[in-house]
C-alpha cells in the first residue's frame, strides 16, 4: 500500500510538471525552481508534512520534497542556533542531497556523452 501511495503522489507531482511544460511558456528551469519554492511554502504553512506522511518517497523525491527538506532544516536550525539558523539550517539539512547531486552528476558526465535527439 505504501508503494501505491508513493506512486500516486509522485506521479501527480510529475503530471503537474508535464502540464506546466506543455501548457505554459515556463522553461524547465523555472518550473524546477517553482517546485522547490512551492515545497518551502507548503511546508511553512504545514501542508507538506501530511503529504510526506501519506506519500512517503512520492513526496520527498520530487523537487518539492527538496523544498520541504530546506524548510524543515531552517526550522531546526532556528530552534538550535537561533537567528543564525536561518542561514545555516537549510543547507545543513540538504547537504547530503546536494553533495550526492554534484557527485553523481559529475560521475555521469564523465561516463556518458549526450547524443543528438531524434
Amino acid at each position, binding site marked *: 500500500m505504501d508503494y501505491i501511495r508513493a506512486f500516486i503522489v509522485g506521479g501527480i507531482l510529475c503530471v503537474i510538471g508535464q502540464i506546466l*511544460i*506543455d501548457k505554459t*511558456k515556463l*522553461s*524547465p*528551469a523555472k518550473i524546477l525552481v517553482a517546485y522547490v519554492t512551492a515545497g518551502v511554502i507548503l511546508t511553512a504553512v504545514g501542508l507538506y508534512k501530511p503529504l510526506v506522511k501519506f506519500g512517503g518517497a512520492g513526496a520527498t523525491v520530487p523537487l518539492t520534497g527538496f523544498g520541504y527538506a530546506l524548510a524543515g532544516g531552517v526550522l531546526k536550525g532556528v530552534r538550535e542556533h537561533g537567528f543564525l539558523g536561518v542561514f545555516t539550517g537549510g543547507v545543513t539539512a540538504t547537504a547530503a542531497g546536494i553533495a550526492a547531486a554534484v557527485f553523481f552528476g559529475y560521475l555521469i*558526465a564523465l561516463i556518458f556523452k*549526450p*547524443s*543528438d*535527439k*531524434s
Partner: protein
Amino acid sequence: MAKRVGRYTIRFEKAPAIKSYASIAGKKEGEGPLAKEFDEINTDSTFGEKTWEKAESRLQNNVLNKALQKANITPASVDIVFAGDLLNQCIGTSYGLRESGIPFAGLYGACSTMAESLSMAAVFVDGGYANIAAALTSSHFCTAERQYRCPLEYGGQRPQSAQWTVTGAGAVILDLNGNGPFIREITLGRIVDLGIKDVNNMGAAMAPAAADTISNYFSDTGAKPGDFDLIATGDLAFVGSELLKDLLKEQGIELKANYSDCGLMIFDREKQDVHSGGSGCGCSASVLCSYILNNLCSGNFKEVLFISTGALMSPISIQQGQSIPAVAHLIHISNRP
C-alpha cells in the same frame, strides 16, 4: 549591370547563373519527405567530430566541397564566399571555412542567411567584383540548442510548441555565365518588429517581415503570385505561414497552392513529431539546394520566389524582455536567363 526597380528591388540585367549547388542533411531530415533530394544524408550528427560546434564546421566544409566538386572547380577559383550561421561569433562558419583559402565575408542574418548570402554573391558576380562567388550556410540541432536554449548535456525537456532546428547545410556557386538556374532579381528586406516576445512562436514574429519584403517585391516589379511555380518562405512553419497569408491578403495579395514554407516541406509534421516544423539557417538552405533547385534544373519549376526569414533576437535580448525583430530577403530564381 544591375538596376534598381521600384523602391527595394534589384534586377540583374545579365542574371548570374548557378554553376552548382549542394545540400547535406542530418538523420531526421533524411527521414523526411525530401530525403531523396539531398546530395548527402549523414545520420551521424557528430560528423566525426568531438564537439557539436566542430560538427557544424565540418558540415559547412563538406557542403562547400560538395558544391565545388559538382562544379568541377577548386576553392582557388572562388573569388569570395558569403556565409554565416546561428552560433555566437558565427564560429561554425569561420572554423569551417578556415582552410578554404577563399576571401571570406561572414554575415549574420539568422535563418535568412541563405537568401542574404546568395543575394550578396549575386551582386558581386553581376557587378564584376567576382567571377565566381559562393554562398552557404548551415544549422545544427545540437549547437542551436546550446546557443538559444540549453546544452543537450543539461537534459532539459523541450516544449511541444518549439520548432525543430534543422541539421543541414546548403551551398551555391555563382558564375556570370552558365546554363542556369539564374538569379534574376533580389529584394533585400527591412527589419520588421511587431512586438512579438514569444520565442516559441517565431513564425509569428517573422511573418510580418516576410509580408513586407514580398509585398515590396510585388509592388516594385508589378509581378503577381500566379507568375511563379513556387513561392517558398524559409521557416515560418505552420502558424507563421498562415499569418503570412492573412497579412498579404490584407494588402490584396493572395498566396494560393503555389505557396509553401521550407520548414513545412522538410519534415512530415504528422509522422515526425516536430510539432511546428523545421527552422534554422540550414532549413531554407538545404531545401533550396535540393528540392527547389533540382526542380528548377529539371524544368518542373520555371520561376521561383525564395524568401528566407530570420528572427534577429539573441538569448540575452529575450531575457531582457525585448521583442523579436525579423528580416526577410527575397530572391527570384528562374530557369531562363
